[in-house]
C-alpha cells in the first residue's frame, strides 16, 4: 500500500489535516481531497498556469508542488480569495471586459493577476503581459485580459485615492 503521511496546512483559512502520499501534489490535495476544483489541471507539468494557487501569498503551480512541501503553509485557492477587494476588482473587470471565454484558465489567471497587483498596483500593459506570460489562454487572444487587469488596477487606485 502507498505510504501516507499526515500533513497539516491552512487551506483558505481552514486548518486541514490530510493524509497524503509522498508523490501527491498540492493540486491533487485541493481538487481530489478538498473538492476545491477552481484550480485546473491543464498540463500537469507546470506550464499552463491553470492550477495557480497562492502558498504563503506567493503564486505557485499546484501541479508541480508536492502536498507535503506545504506542511504548515497557508494555501489560498480561487475559492478562498473572493473577499479580498483586489480580487473582487479583478473579477469585476474580467467580467465586464470579456476577459475569458471558456473560463478554464481564469482561476489561475486571476490569481497571477492578484499577485501582480499586490506587488505593483499600477502596472503598465507590458508589466501585465510579462507578469501573466506564464498563464496560457487559448480563447481570448489575451487582449481583453490585459485590459481587465489594467481596468482593475485603475478601479483600485481610484478607490484608494481620497
Amino acid at each position, binding site marked *: 500500500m*502507498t505510504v501516507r503521511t499526515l500533513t497539516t496546512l491552512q487551506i483558505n483559512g481552514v486548518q486541514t489535516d490530510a493524509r497524503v502520499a509522498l508523490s501527491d501534489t498540492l493540486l491533487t490535495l485541493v*481538487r481530489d481531497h478538498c*473538492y*476545491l*476544483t*477552481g*484550480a*485546473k*489541471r*491543464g*498540463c*500537469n*507539468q507546470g*506550464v*499552463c498556469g*491553470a492550477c495557480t494557487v497562492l502558498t504563503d501569498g506567493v503564486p505557485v503551480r499546484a501541479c508541480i508542488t508536492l502536498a507535503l512541501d506545504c506542511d504548515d503553509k497557508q494555501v489560498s*485557492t*480561487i*475559492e478562498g480569495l*473572493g473577499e479580498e477587494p483586489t480580487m473582487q476588482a*479583478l*473579477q469585476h473587470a*474580467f*467580467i*465586464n*471586459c*470579456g476577459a*475569458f*471565454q*471558456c*473560463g*478554464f*484558465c*481564469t*482561476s489561475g489567471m*486571476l490569481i497571477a493577476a492578484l499577485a501582480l497587483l499586490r506587488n505593483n498596483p499600477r502596472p503598465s*500593459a507590458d508589466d*501585465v*503581459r*510579462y507578469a*501573466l*506570460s*506564464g*498563464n*496560457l*489562454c*487559448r*480563447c*481570448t*487572444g*489575451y*487582449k*481583453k*485580459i*490585459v485590459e481587465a487587469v489594467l481596468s482593475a488596477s485603475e478601479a483600485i487606485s481610484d478607490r484608494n485615492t481620497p
Partner: protein
Amino acid sequence: MKEYIDFGVGKSPPQIEAQEKVCGSAQYIADLYRPNMLFGAILQSPYAHARIIAYEVSKARAMTGVRAIVTGDDVQEHWRMGAFIKDEHAIAKGKVRYVGEPVAAVAADTESIARAAISAIEVTYEELPAALTPQEALASGAAIIHENSADFVKVFETGTAGNLCSRTSFQEGNIEQGWRDSDLIFEGSYQTQPQAHVSLEPCGALAEIDASGRITLWSANQSVFRVQANVCESLGLPMSRLRCLTPRIGAGFGNKMEAHIQPIAALLAAKSRKAVKLILSREQDFEMVRARHPFEIRFKTGVKRDGTLVAREVELLADGGAFADDSPGVLGYALLMSCGPYKIPHAYCHGRLAYTNKMRFGAFRGFGVPQVAFAGETQIDEIADALKLDPIDFRCKNIKKDGDHWLGGQLIDSNGLAECLQKVRLSSGWDNGRVSPRDGVKRRALGVACSAHISGLLATGAIVRLLEDGTVLLNTGSVDIGQGSNTVLSQICAEALKIPLERVSVASPDTDGSPYNWGTTASRVTYMTGTSVIRAAGEVERKIKEHAAEIFECGIEDLEIIPGGLVALKGVAQKNISFAAISGRAHWAVGGPIIGTHTWVFEQKTVDPKRAVVVGLPFPQIGGFVFNATIVDAEIDETTGKCRVERAWSACDVGRAINPTMVEGQIEGGFVQGLGYALFEEMVWNGAAIANPTLMDYKIPTFVEAPREMHSIIVETNDPRGPYGAKSVGEMGMNSVAAAITNAVNAALNARLRCLPLTSERVLLAMLESDRTPTTP
C-alpha cells in the same frame, strides 16, 4: 418597478456564466464526481501498425480495486462510428493503427490502481509495415490500413479505395480554356503542418449506468448529439439507451466535436456497473484525440495582364490519419473555399485524403481554410507583385460581389468583403507604405490576406417555454464551449420577446430533453440556432396573443408585445396584461402551458449542377458566407530570423454583431491561434510517434507573442436570412492570419515562403537566399 438594463441584440452583456467562471465554481468534466465512482485509465498502442494477437489481462484483473477491463474483444466487428465513413471502433479491435491508440482500459477504485493495472496488461502484437505519410500510404504496395474499407458505411460517395480515404473535385468553366485565356500563369507548391487544438481543458468523460442498463454520459464535447450518435454506433446501443449531458466546456476548436474516449468510458461503466470517470492527461490529449491536417498543396493560377483572374487549379493531398473522422468534410470544404472570395471563371479544384498510421486528423477552427488560404493568398500577393499591382487593389478588382456565385454555384447575396478590405486598409495606414525602412537589424512590413467562411449547415432546433411566472426557459441543445452562445442565444430570445435578459434561463444540453443540434462547430450556432430561437419565440408570442385576444375580446392583430413581458392593445400601452398572468391562465385554466418550438435543417444547395461538376461532395447543403480581411505589421530580426507581429487589424463581415464584445473575442482569439499556426506551432512526428505531446515542447502563443496592438473591426451587412441580420464569426478571425503574416514576411524580405510554420530557421534561410539573389526586374 425595477429598471432593467437593456441587453438585447447589439449590446454586450457579460457571459451569463461569468460569475461562476470568476469564482472557480464552474464545473468542467474533471470537476464532476459521483458517489462511489471509479477511475479509468487507458493503455495505448506502442506500434503504428500491428495486429493484436492476444491480450493477457489476468494479472491486472487480480489486482485489488480493479473493477473492469475492456479491450477490443468487448466490441463487435460491425460496431463502427464515424461522421462520414463508419470506420472506427470504440477501442482498437484486431489491429492498432497509430502509436498512442487506446488498446485496453481499466476502471478501478483509484486512479493509481487503474494506472498500475494498465501496466500489468500484456498485449501480444504482430508488427506490420506502417504508412506514415500520404505519399507512402498511396504508393503501390503500401500496407493497407483498413482491409475492409469497401464495406464501411459512408454518408456520401467517397471513392474510398485502399488507403485512399476519400477524394473530391470541383470543376467550373473549362480549365484548359482558362489557361489559354491567361497572359501569365503562376504555380507553386505549399506545405502546412499539423496543429494541435490545445483547448486548455483536456478531454474527459464520466459515465454511469442505472439499474435498467441505461447509460448517462457527461463529457467534454461540442455536441451531446454527436456524442450520443458516436457512442451508440460504436457500442451497438439504441440511441434511446444513452443519455448525453454536458458540463461546462474548457474550449473545443473542433477537438471535441466528434468522439474521443466517451465510448470507452461508457463501455467501462457498462462492464463495471458503476460510474466511471476517465480524464485524459495532456499527453494523451495530444496523442489520441485529433489535430489539424497537414496539407500538401499545389496552386496554379492564370491571370490577364490587367489583373483579372482567369483560371485556377488546386490540388490537395491531406493526411487523414488512421480514421476518417471529419477529414472527408475538411477536404471537401477546403476545396469549396480554395478559389477564395474571387471571381475565377475557370476552376478545377481536386484533392485526395489518405489514411495513414497516425492519430486521426479532424475538425479544427477554419476546417481546411487556413491551409488553402495560406497557399491561395500568398500566391495572390505573388501575382500582384509580378503585375506591379497593389495587393489590396488586385484583390478588390477580383472579389465576388453581391449577385456573384460561389465555387459550385451558390448565389452570394450578403458580402461585406470590400468594406472589410477598405477598413483594414485605412486603419492600418497601408497606403503610407507597405515596407518600412530598415531599422538596425529589424525589417518590417505590412501583409494582407482575406478569406471567407460559412454560417449555415445541418440541423438545429429550439424550444422556448413560458414558465408559470412569465419567465422563459430556452432549450436549444447547443453546447456553449466557452464562446458565449448561451448568452447570445438568450439575447436573441430576450429581444424576440422584448423581455429583460435576466428573465431568460438556458437549459443545459441534454439528449433526453433538448431539441437536436448537430453541434457547436462550423461557426453555425448564432446563425442556425439563433434562427430557431426567433421562430420558437415567435410561436410563444402568437400563443400569448391568443390568450390576450380572448381576455381583451379583440383580434390577435390588434395586439403587440411591449417591453417588460407585457402584451398590450396596439398603441394603448396601458391596456396590457403580463406574460405571468397569461402563463398562469394557460397553466391552470385555458389552453395548456405555452411552449414554442422550431427545428430546421440548412437546405441551400452547395452545388448548382448547371454551373459546376462536383465529385465526392461531403456537404451538399452549406452556405451563409462571411468574409474577413486581415492586415498585420510584422517585424523580423535579421540576426535570428525571428518574426514578431507587432500590430494587427482584422475586419470581419459578421452580418450583425449580436454581442459585439464576444465578436471581438472571437476575432482576437482566432487571430492569436492563427499567429501560433503561422509562426511556431507544429506537432512533430519522430518516426511513428509524436515527439512533442506536451505543453513544454509544443508551444502556443503567450501574452508575450500576442500583438501589442490588436484591432478587431466589425463589419455589419445585415444578412436578410440571419437572426437579426447575424451570420457568423467563430472561425473567420483565424482563416487569413497565416497568409497575412507570410505576406508581410515575404514583403519585408523580398522572399517567398511556402511552408508553415515560419520558424526562425525558415525565415532566416529565406532571407539569406533572397539577399544573395539579385532582384529580378
